[in-house]
């Protein structure tokens, strides 16, 4: 304090904008945004209607199908992906316990949501990653955007998303995709940039067009990294389902949210472990699948 007594006020208190200026600016932006949302709400609703319908349909498909069918389909997919009896049996046991503790329907809701979000993130992330790898200028623009997407607390961008789309599955999905797509984009970009220059040169020397190079050389050689990106994306969309439950997505996340609010220790952990189990199933299956795609690089000549 002593120092500040003898110094001019300017050096002691940061010269901030006045409260009234900030308030006025905030009000203008908020009102402007609200007005914008209000005047276009019908158009926005109509635009996301098909997505809403699709999400509802998928959720109903997962929840209303008889559980043995879902379980069998799931085990078949896991086995075809991993070709591992251990992973398949593990999946069966995990799903059995999820069902045993009465979480089957919630797990199905979460599964449906995660599946859709992952597919969206992959379909969105791979082309952006390819463009980034191709043009340095795109990379220069997209990279800081990805930084913001990964570090901005999801609650913050949920505010405008909820204002625009209201509460429900669509804003939930948007929140999850925003959170889960950056690793997909980054790893696709990285994978393509790391492709052996010599092999690319060979492709050029044989007269490959840009598209032929992408299809025959860059994507196949970047595949291990792209698969790691898909794996990360799956993990991150699962991690986001709790946050998504705040904007009206049901499932295991909603139970966790309820448990947090009410300090239900057991409920919280049961649902938490169910999420972990699903995450491990996804992870092991996709990793084993990725490894199998790379089989040609395993047998090394001595």
């Amino acid at each position, binding site marked *: 304090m002593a120092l500040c007594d003898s110094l001019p006020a300017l050096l002691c208190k940061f010269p901030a904008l006045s409260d009234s200026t900030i308030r006025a600016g905030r009000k203008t932006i908020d009102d402007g945004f609200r007005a914008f949302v209000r005047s276009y709400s019908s158009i926005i609703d109509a635009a996301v209607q098909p997505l809403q319908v699709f999400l509802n349909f998928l959720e109903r498909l997962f929840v209303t199908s008889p559980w043995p069918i879902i379980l069998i389909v799931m085990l078949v997919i896991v086995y075809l992906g991993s070709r591992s009896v251990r992973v398949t049996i593990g999946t069966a046991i995990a799903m059995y316990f999820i069902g045993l503790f009465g979480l089957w329907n919630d797990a199905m809701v979460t599964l449906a949501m995660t599946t859709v979000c992952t597919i969206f993130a992959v379909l969105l992330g791979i082309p952006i990653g390819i463009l980034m790898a191709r043009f340095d200028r795109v990379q220069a623009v997209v990279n800081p955007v990805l930084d913001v997407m990964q570090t901005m607390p999801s609650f913050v961008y949920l505010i405008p998303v909820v204002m625009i789309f209201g509460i429900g599955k669509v804003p939930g999905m948007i929140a999850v995709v925003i959170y889960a797509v950056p690793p997909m984009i980054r790893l696709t970009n990285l994978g393509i940039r790391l492709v*052996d220059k*010599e*092999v690319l*040169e*060979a*492709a*050029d*020397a*044989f*007269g*490959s*067009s840009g598209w*032929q190079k992408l299809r*025959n*050389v860059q994507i*196949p*050689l970047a*595949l291990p990294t792209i698969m790691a990106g898909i794996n990360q994306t799956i993990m991150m969309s699962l991690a986001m389902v709790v946050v998504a439950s705040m904007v009206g997505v049901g499932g295991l996340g909603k139970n966790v949210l309820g448990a947090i609010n009410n300090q239900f220790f057991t409920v919280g952990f049961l649902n938490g472990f169910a999420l972990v189990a699903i995450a491990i199933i996804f992870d092991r299956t996709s990793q084993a699948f990725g490894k199998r795609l790379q089989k*040609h*690089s*395993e*047998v*090394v*000549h001595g």
Partner: protein
Amino acid sequence: MASHAIEIKSLYKIFGPRGADYIEQVKSGLSKAELNAKYGHVLGLQDINISMPAGGVMVVMGLSGSGKSTLIRHINRLIEPTSGEVLYDGVDVCRMNDRDLREFRRHKTAMVFQKFALLPHRTVVENTVYGLEIQGVPAAESEKRARYWIDRVGLSGFENHYPNQLSGGMQQRVGLARALTNDAEILLMDEAYSALDPLIRVDMQTVLLDLQKELKKTVVFITHDLDEALRLGDKIAILRDGRVVQQGTGQDIVLAPADDYITAFVKEVNRGRVINVETIMKPLSGNPEGMPVAKGTVLETAARAMTTAGQSTAHVVDEANRPVGTVSLDTIIAAMVTPTSHDAEAQQAA
């Protein structure tokens, strides 16, 4: 399919963002070191003029950093020249637009790389069809042609192996088969055998020489190994610091090295396998004596033949079996072991 000669005319390459700005200064005498010190640009190639023989093997030799790999990449323009021309069949490769260049690369050239540059996720046969696949040749046809060349380079039975499952020598056979399947007039080989064991290298050289006898492609072969250059090259150009120090036949270079740099190279060469009998023969005096030796026979072969026949003199005959000169075992052995005494004789013969 007739191959044409490749003419490289006053080709310059300056590496760096503003290479073209310094080209005039380099042409008027700015040296590689000065260019680097003053402007931070690297002079890759300067004033290259080479005429590469049609249907023959042109070897470009030099140590690492001499610009030989840069030079070969100008022929299919994997590297853009700063100035100069690369002519093939009257067309300047350096002036082609993107589409023409792609067509040129697809149909006229094929390349073999030092580190093989195979696609790891494709089997041998899938790698081999690559060039044809790019050209849009139907799968059945290209696979048939690929299998033929896989067989010719000695890889039958390995069609469905992945590159990782093969040894270096076998991988390079795939690289060669891939290039040959393209059926291009120009074959570019960038240190193609440098990564191979010596024995396998000689083996692969033989494969190339045997194939070249029937194919008669215009081959450009890059190497840092003089023995390899002498064995393969119909014509050899030696590069140093981005400049051609000497070019000519192997014999020209071994007999009359242009400077100390090349002399140092040539010292270790097995001269008996490079020098031909007509180079050291003496004019006929009187009737031809001893056994006949064909023109173009290398000293080692001639000496072996004469020793086997137990004769110490032989006469050299031309294509029409007319005697044109005479050699003795002594002169042959002298020429094989003593470089210095030999230069005089070379000049005398010329």
